[in-house]
């Protein structure tokens, strides 16, 4: 189920059934229930991870800024049902964070920090509060693993368009319908 693609000097690793073609592009979409690990050895690379709309979903970006290793997942729901067989761990916040951190450690990441994006309420009278639940569980899981949240772009009632730029090791987020991207740099320099 796992495929690893070495593109330029980045190791992009994506889970599940995504075809290799999808990852061969300069920029690729990260669908819900999936994760990606970016291990940047070289600064001169132009890989971008793009999400055309984050609604009630939530995207945690967990990273080691010194080594430039990052992991992100596109989470749909807060908690998996106890005892059920889960094919897509990154669909659920309670499983995804743990998995991501484990993967990152395998890549040698230390001193992890996080940025979280998403968790909006897209419909006017949505009854299930999925976005808010997602925020709550992601925060809880990160706290459990003692990972500080450096920045959050969460809640509200509009979707967000998201780009992770591996070259600059930065995130660009904009509210759908607006023109300006807010850029969040993950490194100090």
């Amino acid at each position, binding site marked *: 189920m796992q495929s690893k693609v070495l593109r330029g000097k980045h190791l992009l690793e994506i889970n599940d059934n995504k075809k290799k073609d999808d990852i061969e592009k300069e920029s690729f979409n990260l*669908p819900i229930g999936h994760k990606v690990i970016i291990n940047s050895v070289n600064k001169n690379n132009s890989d971008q991870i793009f999400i*055309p*709309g*984050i609604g009630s979903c939530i995207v945690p970006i967990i990273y080691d800024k010194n080594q430039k290793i990052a992991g992100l997942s596109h989470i749909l729901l807060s908690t998996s049902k106890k005892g059920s067989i889960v094919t*897509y761990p990154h669909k659920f916040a309670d499983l995804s964070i743990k998995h991501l951190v484990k993967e990152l450690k395998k890549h040698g990441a230390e001193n992890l920090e996080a940025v979280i994006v998403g968790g909006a309420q*897209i*419909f*006017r009278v949505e009854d299930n509060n*999925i976005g808010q639940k997602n925020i709550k569980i992601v925060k809880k899981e990160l706290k459990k693993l003692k990972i500080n949240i450096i920045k959050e772009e969460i809640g509200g009632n509009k*979707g967000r368009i998201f780009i992770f730029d591996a070259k600059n090791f930065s995130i660009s987020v904009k509210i759908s319908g607006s023109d300006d991207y807010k850029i969040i740099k993950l490194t100090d320099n």
Partner: protein
Amino acid sequence: MNEINQNKINLTPSQIDTLKELGNIGSGNAIVALSTLLNKRVEMYLTDLKLIPFWKFSDIFENKEVEYFGISSKIQDDNEFRILQLYTKASMIKIINDLTDFEKIDIEDIKNIKDLDSYSLSIISEMGNILAGNFTSALSDLLSISLMPEIPDLALDVIDAISNSVIANFTQELDNILVIDTSLKIEALELRGYICFIPSMEAVKILLEKVSQKFDT
């Protein structure tokens, strides 16, 4: 044996045809209503049935960067069926402006569903309701069951944000969803839209049972 349980859906070709036909009848009826309501020619594309993993749902739709109005109608309390309608933002605002004698809305002022006044909201809501109602009444008549859409929920956003928020309600335990979708176009209004019928697995079972009872297939 055909299995329709929580995690696995296996449908025979004839069951797929049946469901597709139900979707076709429903969306056909809804589109006639839309055409009558707006007094415009509506182009309708062939209804398609897709059994796809949850993460592919948003791939059904094109124009990812454009904002749409999303109208989500629940049918019956227990979340058994859902009809999701999507219409391009600019053309919906044109429709609202055509129907109103009051001050016209400027598209630049509408960034958020909350920016719309209650009159405009009720136009969208009512349009969604009429279409969903026509969709379900076609099925109710055919299968002698009672299907009533609830007051629809509205959103204004890019398609991925809307569609993923809708399927979050379906996929706590399921990894696959069944979608019967029809896309439509109204040239005169530059409107592009989609009508998606998303039944839960329980609902698929009920529909197929009703069809075989009625038509003995």
